[in-house]
């Protein structure tokens, strides 16, 4: 049914101008006055201009007398034909009257007084307010809403949703040193999901990591954190997963973990050793004294459903989090080892690599929108904001922030001190080091010579904690593969940093990352080519 344009054939009556196939370059030259190909007049044109100017200046009649002023009785002037001089023709009066002619109204004379529209436009609709979960649900619908909120607070989707089309149907892969784990289907499908589970079985799995069949879950499921969750919250979560989520008949992929690590019984041992009982966990978090109810609420969200420590607390040899609450000492949330090549930084009060310089309001905004004047979320944290924290109420986010601000620095650091040297060098136009050149050619357009970026759209590199962590995985990773900051409810714009893996060599990235980590007052160890090569290899393998 497709019709195509008839082939081009010249027609006898066709006029020559439109759509030529092969424009005559000479003809084009003569006519090319477009902005793309602005061509200056050739000598003969200038000669013509001057000659015509001379002729016209010799014309005695003043231009104003050539045509009657005013509207009444005015005839349309005759067409200026080629070569005919008319009063309007610029070639006719090189000594054109200067502005300020009596006939020219002054701008202010024609200025209308005030713009007043009889119409009041409808208000523009900005970002929609975040839904507030019912505090004391009574109906099933209200329990579902509360559960939906808790599922966001617990960031269930980050691990259990692989595509937006199949929420909570599982199969998100986790590449671990021991092999690959696949998250399970937690939709209410009775065969493939958790539809057949009782509330008691559900609660036990979430808080204690024990499946209905008695097997222990891999601790990728953060049940040592969820153990702290209240009975009310668990009930809401159960009602939500049973009644607020679509069942998906998708089988979970088998975990690719080799024997003997595939055996489940060591996990049980692990659980006995490292996972707290729900009673103990709730006592540790909920019955601890706090200066304010806000901090208490924040502690519950961070240590409990938010399971921030799953990434931001270092793990021991057995993959156990070295601390589960603020009470467990300064290792809690002091920064974890890289996950998928992204390094979770410290959330404690360190001045250069932690949140020491961030205000509670900035932390709140970061969790809500993924972006602040001090930095933007990327990698794993973008996922956490995208699936989780953006949906929390501002009060809850502020509570989390106020609690995080109570965590003292795990190590004392000198405060970040801005240093203009790198900026001056980059702006000097003089002889630059290779790192400076690479930065100018690849990064400075958005992050600027000053490293200040244009926050919140382009985050600063100067003084940004994630740039200055001891270990450089995140910086190298984002240079290699780029990252997207998703839009959120309150900040719908997504921003993507492109990857430079195909543009820069390992050596160049090492030099560039070392420059960034040491410029503008940043003070972090240099990056080796070897570490870039290893990370590139890991990322390539993961992608394959």
């Amino acid at each position, binding site marked *: 049914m497709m019709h195509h344009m008839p082939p081009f054939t010249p027609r006898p009556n066709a006029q020559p101008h439109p759509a030529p196939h092969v424009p005559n370059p000479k003809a084009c030259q003569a006519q090319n006055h477009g902005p793309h190909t602005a061509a200056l007049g050739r000598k003969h044109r200038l000669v013509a201009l001057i000659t015509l100017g001379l002729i016209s200046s010799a014309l005695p009649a003043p231009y104003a007398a050539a045509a009657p002023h005013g509207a009444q009785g005015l005839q349309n002037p005759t067409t200026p034909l080629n070569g005919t001089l008319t009063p309007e023709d610029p070639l006719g009066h090189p000594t054109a009257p200067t502005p300020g002619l009596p006939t020219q109204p002054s701008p202010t004379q024609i200025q209308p007084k005030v713009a007043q529209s009889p119409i009041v436009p409808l208000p523009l609709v*900005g970002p929609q307010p975040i839904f507030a979960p019912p505090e004391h649900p009574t109906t099933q619908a209200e329990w579902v809403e509360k559960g939906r909120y808790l599922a966001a607070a617990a960031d269930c989707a980050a691990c259990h949703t692989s595509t937006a089309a199949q929420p909570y149907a599982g199969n998100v892969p986790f590449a671990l040193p021991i092999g690959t784990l696949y998250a399970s289907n937690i939709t209410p499908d009775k065969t493939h999901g958790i539809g057949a589970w009782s509330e008691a079985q559900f609660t036990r799995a979430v808080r204690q990591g024990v499946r209905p069949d008695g097997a222990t879950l891999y601790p990728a499921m953060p049940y040592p954190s969820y153990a702290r969750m209240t009975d009310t919250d668990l009930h809401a979560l159960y009602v939500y997963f049973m009644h607020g989520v679509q069942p998906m008949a998708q089988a979970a992929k088998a975990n690719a973990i080799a024997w003997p690590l595939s055996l489940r019984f060591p996990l049980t041992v692990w659980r006995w050793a490292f996972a707290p009982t729900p009673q103990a966990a709730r006592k540790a978090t909920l019955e601890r004294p706090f200066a304010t109810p806000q901090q208490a609420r924040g502690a519950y969200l961070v240590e409990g459903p938010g399971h921030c420590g799953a990434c931001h607390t270092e793990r021991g040899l057995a993959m156990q989090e070295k601390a589960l609450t603020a009470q467990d000492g300064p290792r809690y949330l002091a920064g974890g080892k890289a996950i998928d090549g992204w390094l979770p930084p410290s959330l404690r009060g360190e001045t250069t690599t932690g949140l020491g310089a961030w205000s509670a309001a900035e932390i709140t905004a970061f969790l809500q929108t993924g*972006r602040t004047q001090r930095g933007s979320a990327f990698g794993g944290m973008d996922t956490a904001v995208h699936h989780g924290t953006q949906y929390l109420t501002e009060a809850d986010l502020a509570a989390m922030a106020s609690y995080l601000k109570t965590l003292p620095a795990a190590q004392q650091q000198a405060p970040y001190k801005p240093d203009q040297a790198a900026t001056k060098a980059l702006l000097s136009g003089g002889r630059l080091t290779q790192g400076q050149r690479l930065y100018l050619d690849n990064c400075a357009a958005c992050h600027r010579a000053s490293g200040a970026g244009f926050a919140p759209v382009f985050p600063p590199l100067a003084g940004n904690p994630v740039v200055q962590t001891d270990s450089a995985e995140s910086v190298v990773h984002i240079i290699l593969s780029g990252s997207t900051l998703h839009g959120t409810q309150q900040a719908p714009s997504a921003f993507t940093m492109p990857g430079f893996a195909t543009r820069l060599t390992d050596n160049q990235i090492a030099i560039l990352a070392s420059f960034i980590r040491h410029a503008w007052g940043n003070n972090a160890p240099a990056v080796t080519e070897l570490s870039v090569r290893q990370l590139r290899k890991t990322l390539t393998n993961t992608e394959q």
Partner: protein
Amino acid sequence: MADKTLPPVDAVVVGAGWAGSIMAKELCEAGLHVVMLERGGPRSTAVDGAYPNSIDELEGAVRYKLFQNLATSTVTVRNRIDEQALPYRRLAAFLPGEGVGGAGLHWTGVHFRAMPQDLRLRSHVIERYGRTFIPEGMNLQDYGVTYAELEPFFDRAEKVFGTSGQAYTVGGKIVGNGNPFAPDRSDDFPLPPLRDVYTAHLFRNAATQAGYHPYAMPAANASQPYTNPYGAQMGPCNFCGYCSDYACYMSAKASPNVNILPALRRHENFSLRTHAHVLKVLLDSTGKKATGVVYQDAQGNHITQPAGLVILAAFQFHNVHLMLLSGIGTPYDPQSNTGTVGRNFTYQNITNSTVLMPPTRSTDQFIGSAGGVAIDDFNCDNFDHGPHGFIGGSPLWVNQAGVKPIAGAKGAITTGQRWGSAWKKQAIDSYRHSFTINAQGSNMAYRDVYLDLDPTWKDAYGQPLLRMTFDWKDNDIRMNRYVIGQLQNVVKALDARDVHYGMREAGKPFDVRDYQTTHLCGGAVMGDNPKTSALNRYLQSWDVPNVFVIGANAFPQGMGYNPTGLVAALAYWSAHHIRTQWLKGNGGPLVTP
């Protein structure tokens, strides 16, 4: 292939550019279930503007990545009624966009309002100069909407676009050295003006010396990071010069993709379908009511999408084309000067003059933005036209949008052969020391300049191509030459080494081989009289009242300013009346003829 009919929706919006995105957003806010159809593919700043691959002149400005694919569909062009029109097979004179964002993704970002006189030009000319001042054959018309009525919507568009500019008056009080000819404003620009580049600074000084009134051009290039009322965020312009023809990697140039779609996509009652080429608007048996649209999808299926409201928001001439293909309104007949669809087709009357500065002055043409410095002393009716006997005018400006390497070499001012070391030397000299001043003028509507369906040529979908009959007319040629004459006063103050004045020549026809502007206008214009306009003052079809046609097609004549600011304001204006009146009524005409 499987043809099918989909479940009905409340509104279908044809085109995912500025007009379509604004209309879809407004209708979604009103609670309507909206489907937006885009014949091109998906586009985003993240992908199409990924730095540094996006700043590729060959891909962007030579191979026209973001533009309409003329191999599938184009227009035919002729200068006069007695000629055979031929297809426009190679992009040159005008560059319509394709894909999500439309021309709004590849535009430069010059963002003007309209002059009050331009919106009621016929009435204004008659009041000031008398009826006989209008030449025979000119279809001079009013928009049917006033500046005061549109002001809140101009303001809204600027806030959504994150427009940088310098106001002259706000609420009747002078607030700064903006354009003194500009009409009053209810609020300032959301962002301060972009800084003058060096050449704009030269022009500002020279224009001041000549006694004119230079001002910073309003630009939808953010001068600072900006968050618009939808919550959409923009980075600031860094003057890289990759605006026109490119997706801005800084997210600094306003586009539907950056400024509206992030918020629009969050509406659950919104969906966007790409590779959906709308073939026609479907009408019921009375021909007075649209029932939806039929489009061809990427697989070649013909899909019928029923809808209660149809918004045509494609590019100017595509809107006219769809009206003609669908039988909405009466096609224009130039012989009798009757009928409205295709009538008052206009363009923009731009010529470019180039100044070569002494070797001691580097013009740094690689720098660019949508900003610049302009004078309005010869725009619109800001000067007495009485002695000159033409209607219309031109702003004059230095709008340095960044000259890239290929354009720089192609446009170099050289003499003799265009190759070899002598040419190279001249080309380098020219690139380093020249700059361009544009006279971007109005273009009036004429009885024998119009759009209709081509009797010969068909597109890839088997539908007749749209035919343009267009030529430059005496009134507009003389206007241009007069304004260029005044430009000499500015150039005199420039200390230039050489200058070439680009201007219209009588007898030299419209030539599609040279890029001019993409500011095509009219063809389905708005107005108060159903005999001379296809649309009423709310951009509603006089003939099919559940069809609204949004775009520069509604301009009765071409103005000196760039059209996007007026298109956006008209879109918000129309949407406002759909929401507050049409949706609350019986779906009938908002204006009784």
